[in-house]
């Protein structure tokens, strides 16, 4: 049986593990041990050595992010840890499982991570749509306070932490690290320019670390097992397991915790059961809406950060969206770009103006008004949306399915022009 630290102890019936069940399964042991025996710097070191990289999309090494936080007696306080539970990336549904089924795992991860950066207050920034997560997290937090895992002098140690749940007003940009900080302060979720980085100047001007739910849920296992054992969980050495997912016309859409670096083919064929009868695979976005398309020739690539980058895409959130031959690729890209256009915060011209323009052109293709020259216009927009031209990563993310779609599905675009209609309609 494969070792599944994140999901292995979840109940089959879909109920959440309560505090007693979580403790019986070994929960909060890593926290007890760390508070007794490890200094914050040692917790940080273990996380750094484990190779853990952020599971929210960008894949930044977690230990390194923490190391930018000012520590010790002269550090400004209060310091903050924020859990990014906004999960607004289309095609992504992995954090919801972790919060609904094992909320204490997240709470323990929060306490350990907050301890590592000597944070005083932690917030969980939760998507408004996740009602069940909200109820189960609220209950788990209350249980953790009652048991002395939160609040003053945790388990008799000198460390204190308050944990609060915030429900988002709902906007893709509220999941972007600095947009999220603005949202928590009660502002519009526009991004902030960096530097200064949030680790130094974040929430209310204080040092702040923002990490994804899945990232934080890994921390108790890194501490509990040790960096070496944790690293060995992966298939390719990048460290740990990953919650992979698939949606679209596959036989068994869902989520699976597998060694990080499992191949795309194994996920697609063994776990998702392959394509539904009667449809053929055309391509996939490996990690949510804002990643580049991969096609047949990439199926043997391991789903890890470095391999997908080598193949011109990104791991993103690790939940793949599968395109089949009954779906028009132009229509799919139009749907994605309409999402990005709608969610743009309006600060940078290539984004707010460019994305509406892109969506208009794509609609033209679908309605039979596309021209060959429009393909160059789309490619030019993709270049303008690229990293370096905008304040945040929404625009570069929007460019990814567009630029790769133009490359891999060029024939489909051209057919729309030649036939003056969408061949799928």
């Amino acid at each position: 049986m494969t070792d599944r630290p994140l999901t292995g102890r979840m109940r089959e019936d879909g109920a959440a593990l309560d505090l007693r069940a979580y403790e019986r399964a070994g929960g909060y042991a890593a926290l007890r041990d760390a508070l007794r025996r490890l200094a914050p710097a040692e917790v940080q070191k273990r996380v750094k050595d484990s190779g853990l990289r952020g599971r929210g999309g960008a894949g930044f090494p977690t230990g390194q992010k923490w190391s930018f936080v000012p520590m010790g007696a002269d550090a400004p306080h209060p310091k903050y840890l924020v859990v990014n539970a906004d999960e607004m990336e289309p095609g992504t549904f992995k954090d919801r499982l972790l919060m609904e089924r094992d909320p204490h795992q997240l709470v323990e991860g929060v306490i350990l991570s907050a301890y590592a950066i000597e944070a005083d207050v932690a917030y969980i920034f939760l998507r408004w749509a996740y009602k069940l997560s909200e109820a189960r997290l609220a209950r788990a937090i209350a249980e953790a306070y009652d048991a002395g895992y939160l609040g003053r002098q945790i388990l008799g140690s000198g460390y204190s932490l308050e944990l609060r749940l915030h429900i988002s007003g709902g906007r893709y940009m509220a999941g972007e690290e600095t947009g999220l900080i603005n949202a928590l302060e009660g502002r519009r979720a526009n991004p902030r320019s960096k530097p200064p980085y949030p680790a130094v100047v974040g929430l209310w001007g204080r040092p702040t670390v923002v990490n994804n739910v899945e990232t934080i849920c890994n921390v108790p296992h890194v501490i509990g097992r040790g960096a070496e054992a944790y690293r060995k969980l992966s298939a390719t050495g990048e460290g740990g397991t990953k919650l992979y997912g698939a949606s679209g016309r596959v036989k068994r859409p869902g989520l699976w915790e597998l060694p990080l670096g499992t191949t795309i083919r194994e996920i697609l064929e063994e776990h998702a059961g392959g394509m539904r009868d009667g449809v053929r695979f055309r391509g996939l976005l490996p990690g949510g809406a804002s990643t580049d398309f991969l096609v047949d020739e990439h199926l043997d690539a391991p789903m890890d950060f470095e391999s997908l980058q080598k193949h011109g895409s990104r791991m993103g959130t690790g939940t793949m969206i599968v395109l089949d031959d009954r779906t028009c690729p132009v229509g799919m890209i139009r749907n994605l770009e309409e999402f990005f256009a709608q969610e743009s915060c309006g600060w940078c011209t290539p984004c707010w103006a460019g994305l509406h323009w892109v969506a208009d052109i794509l609609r033209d293709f679908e309605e039979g008004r596309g021209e060959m020259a429009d393909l160059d216009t789309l490619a030019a927009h993709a270049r303008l949306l690229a990293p370096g031209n905008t304040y945040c990563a929404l625009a570069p993310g929007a460019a990814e399915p567009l630029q790769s779609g133009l490359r891999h599905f060029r024939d489909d675009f051209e057919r729309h022009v030649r036939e003056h209609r969408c061949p799928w309609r």
Partner: protein
Amino acid sequence: MLSDEERHEIEAELTRYPTRRAASIDAMRIVQRHRGWVSDEALRDLAPLIQMTVDELDGVASFYNMIFRRAVGRHVILVCNSVSCWMLGAGRLLDAAAAAAGAPQGGTSADRRFTLLPIVCLGACDHAPVLMVDGDLHHDVDPADAASLLARYE
């Protein structure tokens, strides 16, 4: 005027942040939970409580998708139109929901029973297409079942 209950709930939120402004979104969510939406009058009542101007508060309200600045029906239907649901028939589901609810996309039925809104990914893409009514998530919805599903919401 804010009700005592609303005021009480907002005061509780205010204790959870170091600034009053930080509770602005929570405060509007509380009003919306009680009244269905956030009117101009509600903004005027909230602004002094969280020490923002009415315009600043409206600027925050208008940024977020889930703060309604227009009146809605008794039940709000949110149909996901993001990519995985789009591939699996969200368009047909939206049409079926509109017909069953008697409400246009983005609008409210004449009897004010339903408001129908397209919404971005609801995080249940493995069960596409999905819709949400008043916070209840409905999975793998067949457009043919939209009418019987909505009949449950009087």
